[in-house]
């Protein structure tokens, strides 16, 4: 298994990535984190899995203040790319007055593949907030941001 590709982008003006997962022996995991404290950042990530490739793409987006992020995560499975197994997940945390729009897309031209996607947005539920407060923690935003930096 290949080492995961981990990359953190901070306060970018724009991000454009083309990922090419190779073959099944070379399972590829991509962990892409976008931390936006101000300004606008359009994000375009395109996955082009090869035949019999296994891949997982995790995109994490954190925005605060008045920052905004528009993200499109697209997967293109070509007609000859049978045996593809791909999973793409987006998790977004908008704080303060920030705005995040994120969307996974799939363009699949082969029937013999497995593809999954997920898209979740939100900060803390009332129960999660109580849980953290019951442990004395009130600076969730800071801890999350630090954790994402460390990824």
């Amino acid at each position: 298994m290949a080492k995961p590709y981990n990359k953190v982008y901070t306060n970018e003006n724009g991000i454009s990535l083309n990922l090419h997962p190779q073959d099944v022996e070379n399972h590829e995991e991509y962990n892409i984190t976008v931390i936006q404290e101000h300004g606008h950042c359009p994000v375009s990530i395109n996955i082009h899995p090869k035949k019999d490739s296994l891949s997982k793409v995790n995109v994490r987006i954190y925005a605060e203040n008045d920052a905004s992020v528009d993200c499109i995560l697209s997967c293109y499975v070509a007609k000859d790319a049978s045996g593809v197994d791909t999973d793409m997940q987006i998790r977004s945390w908008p704080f303060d007055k920030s705005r995040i729009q994120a969307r996974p897309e799939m363009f699949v031209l082969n029937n013999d593949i497995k593809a999954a996607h997920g898209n979740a947005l939100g900060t803390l539920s009332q129960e999660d907030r109580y849980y953290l407060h019951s442990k004395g923690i009130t600076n969730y935003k800071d801890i999350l941001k630090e954790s994402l930096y460390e990824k």
Partner: protein
Amino acid sequence: MLRIKGLKASINGKPILDGIDIEANPGDCILVTGHNGSGKSTLLHTIMGRPDIEVEGEIAFNDVDVLELECFERSRNGFFIAHQSPPTLDGVNTLSLFSEFAKFDAPDARKIEIIRKTKGVFEELSLPTDWTQRDFNHGASGGERKKNELAQAKLKTPNVLLLDEPDSGLEQSSRSQVTDLIKSVCDNGGIVFLVTHDQLLQDSYPTKKIELSNGQTL
């Protein structure tokens, strides 16, 4: 000393506790029993200060009016609850969170010491080796979540430890960790409230027992 007097609690206008009186001394472990829905968990969360519980009455700990304290202030004053269903926190690294927990007890501790201590506790509880790097409770079984709660309690020195079914989902061999924790807190002069349906745990340590029925003590 923890004194609870005439405690009433309701959630969304529905009464759950109706006039509870308890006195607990340093070293006491109080077993809280009762049928499902009798108010056992609500009692623990009321003591901890869950914000959606409306409370009347009195809770005093060493002459401090606990009801005047916010939930996080109670935690920072030595109250600790091990939750029955701890959540998953996406994106939040387990070790970062444990480092924050540890700061309240040891604000001057170096990060490397916190990491060493935390990893030691995880090993004691047989948690996976990559546990510190995972998102909090991400991919964790029910038993692993319970161990995560026990790990936090072990790293702190609670004055008041609230255990809400700490054994459920936990393998038999790890249950001694619960009794060791209770003993350690009590030996240190702390007070433990234990809610459990496990007979072995019920027989193991508690020094007092209260039984709840319809929100009242029998």
